[in-house]
């Protein structure tokens, strides 16, 4: 072992000596012989040193090169987007980046989006001065996207960077499919309609997104046979209804009223509706829906008749009349009258049809072309009805089978509204005492000849159900009756007295129903003469009442005969 150690030591010393000589010949020689007399060694040493140094430099350079470029830099990008892309809705691009190996500089990541994408921040190009090795990061681009529904769009991300004079670049892309649109539409039309029958086509729209829309149009595919009579929105010549701005979550209804004219035979028509987003240079197609409607040729004409303003307690008749206007017989014609608001106010009877609660029906087995048939029902109103502004209505429709075509047709429905005139009880009476016994008049009562008695005349408007306007009550006084000037009214202006014509008038612009008791009163003094003993003399002559019932548009009038004293004039025995 010792030998091993010894030789090893020797070998090391030897190697050290010679290595040192090789590497540091100047130092070796200087420390040993100081090149005394051996200056040629200096030349040799210089050559050796230069060679050695060159070799070392070459090797070092090789090592550096190997370190830098043997493993190249690498930038990894991971692009993710919404699972479901809805046109007009929010869309967010997430770009994760990872500088895998080496530090890189002048990094640029440029996102190229379809024109329908709008970045909220407006940024789609991103750059970094440097990214260190193994550096991670994430770029989020919030925005919203508009595109054609069911169409694919490609998002491209291009990146580039520098590494020790080397320029690198790469690309990633993401393809999305627009599954639907946030501009949702619902279109409604009747299943079937008669030619020339007016109906309303409704298109409901809603922006279900939290993003506002600009320049949105709803294209209405209107059949040529359909004639628009009115529309809730302006329809452009190209059949579109456009909205310059549509707020987030905004909704609305487009109502188009019209009718088919000159449609040939029974057939189906289609209403198309499609939304477009014109917010960009490009026009993006959104949802598209369509509704079929069956247009029928009218073969049955329906009408109804009867008075529209009635009084409580009235018994009135209404008649539904129908005519076969086609050229073939109609079978099993079903006439249906639906009553509205009749409950408690009126009862109905029909001798030929069926009555089931609020529905009256009649079946007519056959009606030949050109024939007109009718069905009548009776309405008996409730005489105890005391409601304000009461109206009832009914709607009648009809359907029939067309034998030759094997289809069912129907008629346009007809309606009638029946309004009740106000009830009214106009009373003219005299009072010497109030019902509770308070003295209102004075002087002898019953009246005595030659004695002055004062009484109150009451005009009472009772039991009226509708507000009355322009109410005027008027009477005149007989010669022996004197107006004292004492009066009062419950509504409107004061009672007036014209001494020339001896006319007493109360006018009120309005007298509301169901408020409080209504009327007027005034005092008169009566001086019966002795020739009137045992007679019931007049206190007032006939009294007229007129008023306007604004609900029914009718004038209500009453006339009450002369008001007489209750008891005959007595002789004054005192």
């Amino acid at each position, binding site marked *: 072992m010792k030998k091993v150690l010894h030789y090893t030591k020797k070998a090391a010393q030897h190697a050290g000596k010679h290595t040192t000589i090789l590497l540091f010949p100047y130092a070796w020689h200087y420390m040993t012989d100081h090149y005394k007399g051996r200056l040629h060694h200096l030349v040799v040493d210089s050559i050796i040193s230069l060679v050695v140094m060159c070799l070392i430099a070459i090797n070092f350079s090789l090592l550096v090169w190997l370190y830098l470029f043997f493993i190249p830099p690498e930038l990894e990008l991971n692009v993710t987007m919404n699972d479901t892309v809805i046109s007009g809705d929010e869309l967010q691009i997430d770009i994760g980046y990872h500088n895998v190996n080496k530090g890189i500089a002048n990094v640029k990541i440029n996102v190229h989006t379809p024109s329908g994408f709008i970045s909220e921040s407006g940024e789609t190009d991103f750059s970094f001065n440097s990214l260190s090795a193994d550096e991670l990061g994430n770029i989020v681009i919030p925005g919203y996207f508009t595109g054609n529904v069911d169409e694919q769009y490609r998002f491209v991300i291009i990146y580039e960077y520098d590494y020790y004079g080397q320029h690198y670049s790469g690309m990633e892309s993401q393809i999305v499919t627009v599954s639907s649109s946030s501009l949702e539409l619902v279109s409604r039309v009747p299943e079937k309609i008669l030619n020339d029958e007016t109906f309303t086509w409704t298109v409901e729209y809603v922006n279900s997104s939290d993003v506002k829309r600009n320049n949105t149009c709803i294209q209405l595919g209107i059949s040529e046979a359909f004639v628009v009579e009115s529309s809730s929105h302006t329809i452009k010549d190209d059949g579109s209804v456009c909205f310059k701005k549509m707020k987030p979550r905004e909704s609305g209804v487009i109502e188009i009223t019209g009718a088919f004219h000159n449609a040939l035979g029974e057939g189906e028509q289609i209403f198309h509706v499609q939304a477009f987003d014109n917010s960009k240079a490009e026009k993006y197609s959104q949802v598209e829906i369509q509704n079929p409607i069956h247009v029928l040729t009218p073969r049955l004409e329906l009408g109804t008749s009867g008075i529209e303003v009635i009084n409580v307690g009235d018994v009135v008749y209404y008649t539904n009349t129908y005519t076969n206007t086609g050229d073939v017989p109609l079978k099993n014609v079903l006439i249906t009258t639906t009553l509205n608001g009749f409950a408690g106010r009126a009862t109905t009877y029909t001798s030929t049809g069926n009555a089931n609660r609020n529905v009256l029906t009649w079946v007519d087995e056959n009606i030949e072309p050109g024939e007109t048939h009718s069905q009548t029902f009776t309405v008996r109103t409730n005489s105890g009805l005391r409601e304000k502004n009461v109206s009832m209505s009914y709607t009648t429709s009809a359907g029939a089978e067309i034998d030759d075509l094997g289809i069912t047709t129907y008629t346009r429905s007809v309606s009638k509204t029946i309004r009740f005139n106000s009830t009214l009880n106009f009373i003219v009476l005299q009072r010497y005492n109030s019902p509770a016994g*308070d003295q209102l008049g004075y002087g002898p009562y019953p009246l005595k000849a030659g004695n002055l008695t004062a009484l109150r005349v009451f005009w009472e408007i009772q039991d009226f159900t509708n507000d009355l306007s322009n109410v005027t009550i008027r009477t005149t006084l007989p010669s022996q009756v004197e107006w004292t000037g004492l009066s009062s009214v419950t509504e409107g202006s004061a009672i007036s007295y014209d001494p020339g014509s001896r006319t007493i008038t109360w006018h009120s612009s309005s007298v509301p129903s169901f408020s409080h008791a209504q*009327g007027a009163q005034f005092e008169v003094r009566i001086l019966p003469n002795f020739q009137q003993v045992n007679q019931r003399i007049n206190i007032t002559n006939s009294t007229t009442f007129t008023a306007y019932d604004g609900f029914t548009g009718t004038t209500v009038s009453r006339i009450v005969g002369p008001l007489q004293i209750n008891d005959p004039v007595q002789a004054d025995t005192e």
Partner: protein
Amino acid sequence: MQDYMRFIQNIHNKNVVSKISGFALIVSLLFIVFPGQEATAKKSLPENYPRVGNYFLDPYISTYEAEQLAKWDVVVLGFDTQYNSPDAFTKMKEINPDIILLAYIPSEEVPLKHLGVTDKKSPVYTIYHRLVENDNWYLKNSSGEYVNFYPDTRMINVTTAWKKSLSNFVTKHVLKEHPKKWDGVFYDNCFNNVAWVDPKIDVDADGKADNWNTADAQWKNGMNVIMKRTRNKNPNSFIVCNSNGDYYTYINGRLMEAFPSDYDGGWSGSMEKYFNVIADGDIPSMVIVNTVADSTDSTNYKLMRYNLGSTLLGNGFASYDQSIDVHHSLWWYDEYSVALGNPLGGAFNVDTNAGPTNFTDGLWRRNFQRGIVFVNSSNSDRTIQLEEGFEKILGTQDTTVNNGEVVGTVKIPAHDGIILLGRIDQVANAPFINGTFAKVFNVEGNQTRNAFFSYNSLFPGSNTIIYLEDVATTIIADETYVTVRKNGQTITKFAPYGDQFKGGINIAVDRLDGKKKGYRIVTGTKDYGPHVKIYSLKGKLRNPGCFPYAESFRGGVNVAIGDVIKKNGGKEIVVAAAKGGGPHVRILNRNCELISPGFFAYDESLHTGISVAAGDIDNDGSDEIVTIPSQGGAPYVRMFNHKGNEVSPGFYAFNKDDRNGAQISVSDIDGDELSEIVAMSFSIFNQ
């Protein structure tokens, strides 16, 4: 006093005492030593007729008597009552601060019993003990005998030093010493002459019978000195004499005892003298027209009415009692409680239309603000047709006359009189619904006046109206607007809840701060939310208001103003839920802040809304809260204090089955300074 001492100190320091300053000092001292000599304004006479006086000569006044006497406008009391019953004065003036109290003292005689008074503190001793010392002050005849004309009295010679002694005593020991007790003096027996007392009268005390004319002249001169000295020393006190005194330069009037007396020329002569006193006396003239029943029976209503009616023809005070010997009656009559207001012109003879310069017997009349009076001084009954209906007094005494009936013709028996009241046509100083039939009740639920239609033809029916008498201003509330009018002009018109509001407005108007600031209009909604607001009379919003009930409640709020909580200062706003609301009464302060959670005036299940009013219906000094259900509820009136305790059993204002709805107000409907309950309804048009 401190000011005075400072004044003295200044003079001393400056050493400027001079004759002038010395004079000033003396004058100042006089004012300090005799503070009672400071001029006090003479009381004004009551403006509300009838004026009534009581000649109550009882040396002692009990508390009960004091409480009763406080009802009269002027009371003559013995001067010794200031010593005998000092508390009575306090009581009377506490109840009736406007009462006029006159100290009775004979001017020409002394009751013999007074000469025996030895109590030196008694004013009787003070005035009469000098007579004991001065026998020559008595009036005697030429035989040296004392003379008298009334039993148990002795006449005093007014030409002696008595004339100064009496006026000094009245000034110093009555009027000045007791300024809070007395408002004046009543000298009994102010005769113009004296010879009639004894043919041998010896006024000049020379032991010889005087010439009657000379004696009378001397006598009158002595009396003039008494009156003149009394007036000069007491310029602001009432001086009233008895008998046919002729000293009107110095006195305010006379008490006409035993009216109408034959001595004065019967009714015509007495009335002429009555009016002469009014014309000639010092202003304000005060004539107490006293009629005696000559009986202890107080029920000679006819005589009382004759006295009262005759008195009302002038501006005097009616007085009616037992007899000239017994003047201490507390007879109070239904007529005395009536408030006629001020006269509208003078009296006139119905037949001749003659004025009060020629009082021939016949039927006389005088018109007042709230009624009329007739006196038939003829010997036959008279029946007269009235130009309009008048109301008889609803009394409790002579109910054959005062039966509350409305009459167009009235019969006045000979030597009788009658007061008729004008029919009421609208409520004053409290809200009323224009055109409603109104009934007037007292706190016990008794009708005190005939029912009437509360109506102002200038404004539409159904509007709510308040007429403020003291400022002659009318406030009208309709469906949308509140309008304030004065002298026929609209002062302001505003919509408390906006021009689009059509639900109707309730109003209450009063001085919320008591009497300090102007009126405030408190508005409430009749419908669509219980919003209370406060405006000035000029329509300026003073308080944006409050919601005393849940804002979500759609029924509105009724409002009233009253001093229901005395200690709170100012007045409170009392509210109740309107249409469809529960009977919940709440109290707000003048800033619209809730100060009392309130109480339920009726069963909580009643949801008709209730009308509310406030006023002092029981005359206790605090306002009570009065309620009645609105449409759908029975018309049952209830009255509460602010704690919700009923102050009186309720009553039905209208038929108990009547569900038309009613409105309530509290107002002094007849001007008698007592508040009545006024229930209003349109239901008479539905019966």
